[in-house]
């Protein structure tokens, strides 16, 4: 099975070094860095570390960057695509756990969750409240318990790669894309992972944006839930 790791990176020159260290010794996957028009040397650093780098000519935001990766995976015939953040938060050692349910045909999308075993970096209290809220909202609408809906550490199969390369939410895409898949009767599963605190760079969500984030994602989830089954 051809496996592609998609690493969206925006100003992550320090994070990428960390990611490269973590990928040391993992040889059965291809890695592609999507450089979302970084203002620092992300592109050069990525190339020097021996990664495949796609440079976007203008900044698209996380959704557009990740979707570029899915398009690349689709066009190059990959069977499985895995999203890994460019800041070293996600340990690639868990990739085989993420892939397993897909290989066994049990799931279309596998989410790496911090909250199944509650080990490692658990994020700040306010964020946990927000994440719990989205988890509850998704359960309310789709009757499916997702403990870590904002996790950017996810794997998906060819069917989902195809779907995501035609449509993927723009900003703050993770929770919305889960509802999008559940609405269309795709199977999701969570596996426990341990996440690190981020190394270098900035999170895409700061305190000023958090209220906007909550409102926007809530609306996105509720509206997506109103869409018809099969509308992609």
């Amino acid at each position, binding site marked *: 099975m051809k496996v592609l790791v998609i690493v969206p990176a925006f100003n992550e020159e320090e994070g990428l070094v960390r990611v490269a260290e973590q990928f040391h010794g993992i040889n059965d996957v291809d890695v592609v860095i999507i450089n979302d028009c970084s203002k620092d040397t992300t592109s050069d650093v990525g190339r020097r570390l021996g990664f495949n780098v796609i440079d976007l000519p203008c900044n698209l935001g996380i959704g557009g960057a990740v979707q570029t990766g899915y398009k690349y995976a689709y066009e190059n015939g990959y069977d499985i695509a895995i999203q890994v953040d460019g800041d070293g938060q996600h340990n690639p050692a868990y990739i085989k756990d993420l892939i397993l349910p897909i290989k066994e045909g049990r799931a279309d999308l596998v989410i790496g969750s911090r909250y199944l075993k509650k080990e490692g970096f658990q994020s700040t209290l306010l964020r946990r409240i927000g994440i719990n809220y989205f988890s509850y909202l998704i359960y309310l609408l789709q009757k499916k318990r997702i403990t870590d809906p904002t996790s950017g550490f996810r794997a998906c199969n060819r069917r989902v790669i195809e779907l995501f390369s035609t449509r993927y939410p*723009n900003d703050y895409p993770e929770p919305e894309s889960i509802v999008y898949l559940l609405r269309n009767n795709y199977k999701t599963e969570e596996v426990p992972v341990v996440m690190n605190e981020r190394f270098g760079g900035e999170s895409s969500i700061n305190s000023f944006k958090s209220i906007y984030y909550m409102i926007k994602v809530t609306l996105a989830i509720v509206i997506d839930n109103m869409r018809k089954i099969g509308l992609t």
Partner: protein
Amino acid sequence: MITIQLQIILLITSIITFMVIINLIRKYNLELKYSLLWLFFCFVNVLLAAFSNLAIMIANLLSIKEPVNAIFLLSFIFQFFLIFSLTLTISRISNKFTQLVQEVGLLKKEVEKIKNTQSVER
């Protein structure tokens, strides 16, 4: 004073606008990001229509005699914000568009170069 007719008209139009916008997003015709401001103003309009005290309060605050005029003023400010956000978005898009076209131009040149060297090799 705000007449009950005005209240009803305001309420109905904002609710219809709200529903139309949600429906357009639902059909993937509108991008949620750019509709948020509209939805917010619809929401404020509904509040203004439902609670006439609110308009009277704002009118008093700004020393405007008629609450209706306060509503007009607010609508004017709303329009200003909406148009300004459009200008902002257009500016961003035009910047990105320039970058994109330049990138395509450069790529075309690159491809041409590769093609030329290939034909020379043959």
